[in-house]
């Protein structure tokens, strides 16, 4: 496998209120070899503060990929998605929905709001592992986003 030289570590923003799920994703992402930085926020409101550099997030660079849970306290994932995809400064960032919900209504709504990908958290640990690593590889390495370095 020839992996193009990555000139700087990929930055992931994980929007996840469930501590355990966050831990699973982060642990799995770290297993995958490429260098990366993962920031986590707890809900939709905090996610937008992060992305807009508000308050304590002042000066933080935009992430390369956003991993977005749907069921979040305060502002839910769909609302966050809508806000990102209508914000001129944010809409180019790939948003990957990462949720327990496999309901059609959620999938359709997410794609309507221009989600770039929709992943359902698998129950099986090995599958979860594989999925997160594949995702990291695909969106972190193979995929050329508009702002790829």
């Amino acid at each position, binding site marked *: 496998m020839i992996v193009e030289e990555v000139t700087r570590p990929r930055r992931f923003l994980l929007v996840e*209120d*469930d501590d*355990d*799920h966050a*831990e*699973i994703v982060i*642990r799995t992402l770290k297993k995958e070899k490429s260098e990366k930085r993962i920031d986590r926020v*707890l*809900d939709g409101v905090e996610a937008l503060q992060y992305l807009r550099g508000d308050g304590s997030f002042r000066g933080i660079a935009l992430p390369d990929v956003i991993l977005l849970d749907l*069921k979040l*306290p*305060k502002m839910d994932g769909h609302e966050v998605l809508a806000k990102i995809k209508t914000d001129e400064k944010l809409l180019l960032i790939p948003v990957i929905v990462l949720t*327990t*919900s496999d*309901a059609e*209504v959620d999938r359709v709504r997410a794609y309507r709001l221009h989600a770039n990908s929709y992943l359902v*958290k*698998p*129950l*099986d*640990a*090995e599958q*979860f*592992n594989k999925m997160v690593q594949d995702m990291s590889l695909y969106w972190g390495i193979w995929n050329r986003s508009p702002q790829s370095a």
Partner: protein
Amino acid sequence: MHVGPASPVDSGHLEKEAKLRTVIESVPNGIIMVDETGKITLCNTEAERMFGYERDELLGMPVETLVPSQVRTKHPTYRESFLHDPSKRQMGAGRDLTGLRKDGAEIPVEIGLNHIKTNEGSFVVASIVDITERKKQEEKFRTIVESVPNGIIMVDTGGSITLSNSEAEKMFGYSRGELLGKKVEMLIPMRYQGNHPIERDRFIHHPQKRQMGAGRDLSGLKKDGTEIPVEIGLNPIETPEGRYILASILDISERKSIDDKLHQAYEEVQQKNREMEQFVYTVSHDLKAPLVTSMSFIGFLKEDIRANDFSTVSDSLQRLEKAHRRMQELINDLLQVSRIGRMELHYEKVPTKEILDEVLENAAERIQATKAQFDWATDLPVIWADRKRLAQVLENLVGNALKYTSDATDPLVHVFWNDAPTEIQLCVKDNGPGIDPQYHAKIFGLFQRLDSSKEGTGVGLTIVSRIMQLHGGRVWVNSESGQGAEFWLAFPKVPNRKGL
């Protein structure tokens, strides 16, 4: 014609008289001539047949003999006044006239009067029509109109009611005959009255059998001012007296109320379906989350054990345990919510002070731990409610208040109430972090939480909301971020048993 007793007799005269007799006999009406004293001086065969007398009997007989006894005494006076003002006219205009036959039977008649002046004095000629047949027809018509289960109203071109059946009178709350001669607009609610004469006029000029106000909901105005939903069919009727409009009116109150009930039931089922869908969706999502956690951490544990790395084993086990406890919690809460959905309320008069005391006693330990101050109105009301469910509601609200004031420096929970016109409003107020108005609707949803760092599944306010719904009451929150929160409960003063 023998007009007077002393007329001279000659052949020309006789011929004239014979001609006159032929004319009189050919008239289809009964003809009777009466002198100033009221004696019959002339009659034709039709009159004889009508009253059942022979000509000899009639001639010379007082005309009052042919008048039914109840008016007989007044008749000479009427006769007198006619002689003084002898204009050609209908007798007894507007009244039903009857004639008395020899056999004692009374027959309905119509009588036209005329006055003749000869050199032998004044005479009155009465032209009599036997209207028995017509009356029978009218009676038949009347019977039909009365037997129709609809209200029937006939209106003339001027909008006056000329006929109404008892069904119509009953429908609009009027007594027999009270509607006759009145404007039909009196049966129409005020807000529609303005246009009606124009509509009526249009119909009169372009009449066709049709439903009135097709596609619209029509209402009728009763005498007592209340309104009833009606359906009206219009039919133009041509009579010798001119055009009339026949309106057939159906009171559809009952059908409407059944329709409304059906619609309401349908809406309720739809609402329940939506709730059910939401419920299944939420449950599948929320139950899956701890399952994903345990499966993944079991995976991590396996890896770690294989790698002889025990550094995170204890952490993983803790997370596993927590996930399982959470699943148990969710299942318990689900059962609780589902029980409330099919619960029957046992209404009684409940002193809210008593319930609050119980709730505070049960929460004593937590209150101790949070050092929260409690403050409540001394005159807390007695309300119609299910005692256990009210306790459950207050338990949840007080529990929330304790939970969210725990970070405040001087936690304070205040319970007070408000006597509104139709409901008792009870408020649990705290000085916690408050809730941004944009989340006010969301917090009552199943398993919705604004702060995942606090314990609980997010079922408490869902339960509160369902119990209040069962009581036909309401729950809402008044709060701004950073301003504390007021949770309001409204119980109807008259218990609404819809939820039973």
